[in-house]
């Protein structure tokens, strides 16, 4: 995972902060899209993540952990939004969406299976398969030991196999 070019966040002006995030914006969008599955929602996630990152910028003590910090914020935004959508959108509409978007049955099955996964397994599977991150990198993002991440990955894949 490449390193972001940031100076001290607490004294960084808006333009410099924007440039720091802009350097990672496509990666954040990619993560958001893998969770939200459509452009509009994924862009809203990127917007919300930028909002939260700006508000929390002074609390990041190590500017050198900027990228994993941003990724964590983005993932949390995705989960918040998915929880909110779950409260307002009945699961029946899955079928309707599938017809409109002409999704393959594999894709529909995968999305449903992902939704059933424990969130810690889901994050690991997402970061591994959609962002091509190593377990060491994932461990840094999730702030867990690498061994734990490997175990979550194994368990996550096992559960997906069961649901698919």
């Amino acid at each position, binding site marked *: 995972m490449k390193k972001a070019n*940031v100076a001290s966040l607490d004294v960084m002006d808006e333009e410099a902060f*924007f440039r720091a995030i802009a350097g990672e*914006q496509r990666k954040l969008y990619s993560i958001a*899209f893998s969770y939200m599955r459509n452009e509009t929602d994924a862009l809203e996630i990127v917007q919300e993540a930028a909002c939260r990152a*700006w508000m*929390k910028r002074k609390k990041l003590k190590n500017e*050198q952990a900027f990228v994993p910090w941003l990724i964590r914020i983005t993932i949390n935004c995705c989960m918040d939004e998915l929880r909110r959508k779950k409260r307002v959108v009945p699961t029946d509409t899955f079928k309707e969406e599938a017809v409109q978007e002409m999704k393959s049955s*594999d894709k529909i099955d995968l999305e449903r299976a992902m939704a059933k996964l424990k969130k810690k397994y889901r994050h690991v599977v997402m970061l591994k398969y959609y962002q091509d991150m190593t377990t060491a990198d994932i461990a840094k*993002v999730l702030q867990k030991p690498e061994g734990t991440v490997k175990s979550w990955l194994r368990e996550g894949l096992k559960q997906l196999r069961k649901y698919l």
Partner: protein
Amino acid sequence: MLEKEQRILAQDSDDISKKVHDLPEMKLSTAVRRGMLQGRNREMRRRKLFYGIGAIAVGAAAIMITISSLGVAPKEKPYELVQTTRSPQPANFESFRPIAAQDQGIAAALDQGLVKRIDQSVEKNGFRIDIAGVFTDGRKAYIMYSAHNQTDHTAYPLVESLNFGGVEASHFRAQSKHAMGSNMLMPGQTGYYVYTANFVPSASYKGDATLAVKIWDSTTNEYRDQLKFTIPLEPNMFKNEERIYHPGSTLTVDGQKINVRQVQFTPLNTYVDLEYDRSNGKQIFKLLNPVLIGKSGDKIQKAYYPDTMFSDETKVTLVFKTNTFDQLDRTELKVAGVAALDKDKMKIVVDLNKKEIIEAPDDHIQIIEPEGPAGAGEILFHYKLEKAQAAESFGLWLEDSFTDAEGAKHKRLSPEHIKQSGHTVSGNPDDSTEDYNPYNFGKEALDYPQPLTIGIKQYWNPIMESQSVDLVSKKGNR
């Protein structure tokens, strides 16, 4: 053979990757800018909530924050001056090779064997830092080090400063690069880093280097130790190998002069120091698409996308990722144009009561009605950027203060109600986008003597005029 779930994941990942790739950059930039504006709005509302009802800070934060914080204000110990000892074993420089992909200077040093071996360590309370090697070229300093976390907490090192003889290298853009996902080290883990810092051109650096390093403990959320130590390193290791030229040439774009003060080739990079002529009638904000071109007979080499150092309203240094162009017959710098504005137009004058622009650099900027309600004293600027591809997220940047008609200075406030901000892609084939900039004068400003004047710090006014200037030729201008 892949299991079914892995096959489906791989296929899905591929599909998503294509969709992600297709999204125009401007849409992402718009989302980020809007998000930052929202952040400012929420901060403002949170402050009002706090002061308005006397809620305690914890209660106010609980409304807004859903993410675990990385730490509260650290309790800082004073720096401890420590002696280094010989590292337990010699460093393997190739362990730092993955970091070279991020910085051509690092790649050049490793490839050419320019790293000065140090192999000195400091250790405190189970956390050890090994300085593997160093290299400096008088413009940038690089410190290659590894950190070994032998504690039972997650922790990481943070280089706070680097100084030579008491004179500090610049903090701006100083950073430790690493190839891992995060700077953090789990218990038992080792990490490899290269710290880079720029030297301030006007400063006089002498003597050995002193590093100030903090160790952050993620478990206790505080700095566990702060160490200062000295390593044998001079500010310019390659003094005898650098080639410095003073071409005395001038790049002229739209009649604006950009003087080439110096071109410096070091074994690591090429540094082109430019100064904007004081007689220029325009303020230059940015050189557009600068390219270094080296020519020898039919052979042409080019270096694109330089980094910049110490850029301000009077100067900029371009750092090109090459170091051999002066070995060719001729080297020149070419630009596609500049982003610049007449100095006497660097303001926007507004009658806030009438919500009218009295004076602006051009008619690309307008005041429009926002989509939602606006607070008293708030307006929304709409700005059309032409030749937006060359802008690369270059935004309108206004001063944080404004003056009223009697010359009194006032501070700008964060937007309260207007949510629109950032760029939107117009979808026109004319390569334009639209920029939305809210500005909150505050409701008191309605009673200030009108009109109100806002200074401009940055304004996208591209002047596309391809020009080049000679930097070095074999006939010699050293």
